[in-house]
């Protein structure tokens, strides 16, 4: 028995060392989660506008082009579940907040909890954004080790990115995702539109859970006299054409219902906005820096208009 345990122990030493190194890497190298947490926690006294949502707002709304002091707390694959947790965590420390911008995309309302990217991202929200995530049980070992969360090839890729770029932070000091700078040709974007639309189709038309969460965010804003701006971010028409028209209609109806039911809610729909052209898109459903500037300026125009009204 002793011999077996010794051999297992010796065999595991290199594996444990790699694990420890990965853990140190995740804990010490700043990434979007830890950076955004630090930024929002330290610079919250004068924020007027807070942006939440997934990659569409993360890359698509650049606070630089908004005249009010804005922070973009959106992140890649951030669901309403985490939008709500983040908002509830920070609302008490945002004394000047006037506007909350919340994106409602094709997957936002039907997204089930703990699926797809949530499966690993939730641990980063817990560990690096100091969120109490009810989806994670206390006896889950991944709650205590980020190295266990991601597969080794992903960790290795992150490490290589870090070596190459010198950082894992993909956003500027105001939280905007500043790495989408390119564009696609018309053939390529049509081809990618097909796969992206397919990837985004979860087959669910059940909006009840996430609608309830949005309403709770709106109610919280109402109490604090904060205006909520629901935004359907611009997407490439080829992508839009491949989505379910019934579901799109239902999403737009749901947003309009939020607007009509709640006096503090406004809704901007950029989905079929012809002002956005091929060169504004990084890929079928994400704006690049040029598109983000255009979108942010339009939102700014809208907010300025609201302020003068």
């Amino acid at each position, binding site marked *: *028995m002793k011999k077996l345990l010794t051999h297992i122990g010796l065999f595991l030493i290199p*594996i444990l060392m790699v694990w420890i190194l990965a853990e140190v890497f995740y804990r010490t190298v700043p990434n979007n989660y830890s950076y955004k947490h630090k930024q929002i926690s330290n610079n919250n006294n004068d924020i007027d506008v807070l942006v939440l949502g997934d990659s569409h707002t993360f890359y698509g709304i650049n606070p630089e082009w908004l005249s009010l002091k804005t922070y973009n707390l959106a992140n890649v694959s951030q669901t309403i579940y985490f939008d709500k947790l983040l908002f509830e965590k920070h609302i008490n420390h945002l004394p000047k907040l006037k506007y909350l911008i919340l994106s409602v995309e094709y997957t936002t309302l039907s997204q089930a909890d703990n699926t797809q990217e949530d499966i690993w991202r939730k641990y980063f929200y817990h560990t690096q954004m100091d969120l109490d995530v009810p989806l994670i049980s206390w006896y889950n*070992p991944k709650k205590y080790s980020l190295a*266990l969360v991601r*597969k*080794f*090839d992903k960790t*290795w890729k992150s490490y290589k990115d870090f070596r190459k770029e010198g950082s894992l932070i993909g956003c500027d000091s105001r939280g905007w995702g500043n790495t989408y700078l390119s564009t696609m040709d018309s053939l390529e974007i049509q081809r990618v539109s097909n796969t992206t639309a397919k990837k985004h189709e979860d087959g669910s038309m059940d909006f009840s859970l996430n609608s309830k969460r949005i309403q709770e965010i709106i109610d919280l804003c109402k109490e604090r006299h904060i205006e909520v701006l629901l935004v359907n971010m611009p997407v490439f028409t080829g992508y839009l054409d491949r989505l379910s028209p019934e579901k799109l209609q239902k999403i737009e109806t749901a947003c309009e219902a939020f607007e009509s039911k709640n006096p503090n809610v406004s809704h901007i729909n950029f989905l079929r906005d012809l002002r956005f052209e091929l060169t504004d898109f990084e890929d079928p459903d994400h704006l690049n820096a040029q598109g983000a500037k255009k979108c942010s300026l339009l939102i700014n125009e809208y907010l300025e208009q609201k302020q003068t009204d």
Partner: protein
Amino acid sequence: MLFNTIDFAIFMPIVFLLYWFVFKKNIKIQNLFLLITSYFFYACWDWRFLGLIFVSSLVDYLVGLSLAKTEEKAKRKTLLITSLVVNLGILGFFKYYNFFIESFQEVFSLFGRSLESSSLNILLPVGISFYTFQTLSYTIDVYRKRIEPTNNILSFFTFVSFFPQLVAGPIERASNLLPQFERKRQFDYAKSVDGLRLILLGLFKKMVIADNCALAVNEIFTNYSEYNGSTLFFGAFFFAFQIYGDFSGYSDIAIGTARLLGFDLMQNFNSPYLSRNLGEFWRRWHISLSTWFRDYVYIPLGGNQVSKAKWIRNIFIVFLLSGFWHGANWTFIIWGFIHALFFLPLIFQNKNGHFKDVADPGKLLPSLKSVVQIGSTFLIVLVAWVFFRAENVTHAFLYLQEMFSVSLFSFPMVSKGLVLFLMVYMIFEWLQRDKKHLLEIDFIRSKPLRIAVYYCLAFIIFYFAGDTQPFIYFQF
């Protein structure tokens, strides 16, 4: 709790250390510990179904004791029927209720009538088909006086719920496993090392082969209408390896885990894709299930010791039942039917018993004859897998229709790397075909080289593991 999770990586060492260090001295306490850990292991999925395992175990334990007390034929038969009704009743309700209701409704609607009965929202308890067959085998063997019934309730309950093989087999026989609970287990270094190798191999098969194939399979089977015939062929090819890696990987981990605890479970897979005919395939694929059907269905029906017509009937009964065992869907039944159909030539040519040894023993390369035989057997198995994987019968036929179209000869849109990887894997299986498993590498004299092989496998697992997919056989 899945074998390929961190949870199990924490659970197993704790069980191992407590089992050998704390509870070693008293076999009863050791068994009680195994029973508690087994029930805990199962409860991690759904504690509500623990009651079903308990009921199955209790009924068969009591039936076994009662069978020992009576020689009266009628009474013995009644006891056996009681066990069959309870066990198959539970299995039938949870697994087949909706299937029968919906099938009857469809038949009635064909005749323009409607059947007023609604299907229920029933959750399928994990592993129910496995432990039901295991506990049934005990009662049938006691009834046939092949084994003595046990009066040790703790051993029996642990035998039924033994966690390494509780949810997906191998379906053990009481004659093999039950006595192991009744005698003192001795720690064996060589056995434990082999157990660890099997766990490593099982993780490789599941996390690298099955989970990587699953991605391609899901895409191709879901959007089959968008792909050409050759891509669909590879979709089925990948599924063949997904299900093999998934199920044989699970079995390897189960057998390896049991070995660490001092138990020997039966081999469940033995390089099935190197089979030269379907008879050999079924001696190498899901061995514990095929031998179960052989011993408790095929032979009682007369096996091959009857007229040819009845023999064919027996073959069809066994394969159709085997298909139905997998799930309440016509796709599984057709899968069984295809195997039965292609089994017929073996009966007519009396070749069923051929190929009991490995192909081309002692040779490095296969003969042309073996290549043709292995290839044609694999092709039959592959076509049958399409039914096994398809959502429904229509889906399967449409898939096959497209697969066997002219576009079968066009260039496939699949990952060449994955195809190459699977080919390389099969070369290793070929080279190791006379061994009990792929990692039986004691012939490598150099210890550092053997360790390098283990590290290499561990690295491949960590680096190339696909996105975690649930074990396919848990749904059965």
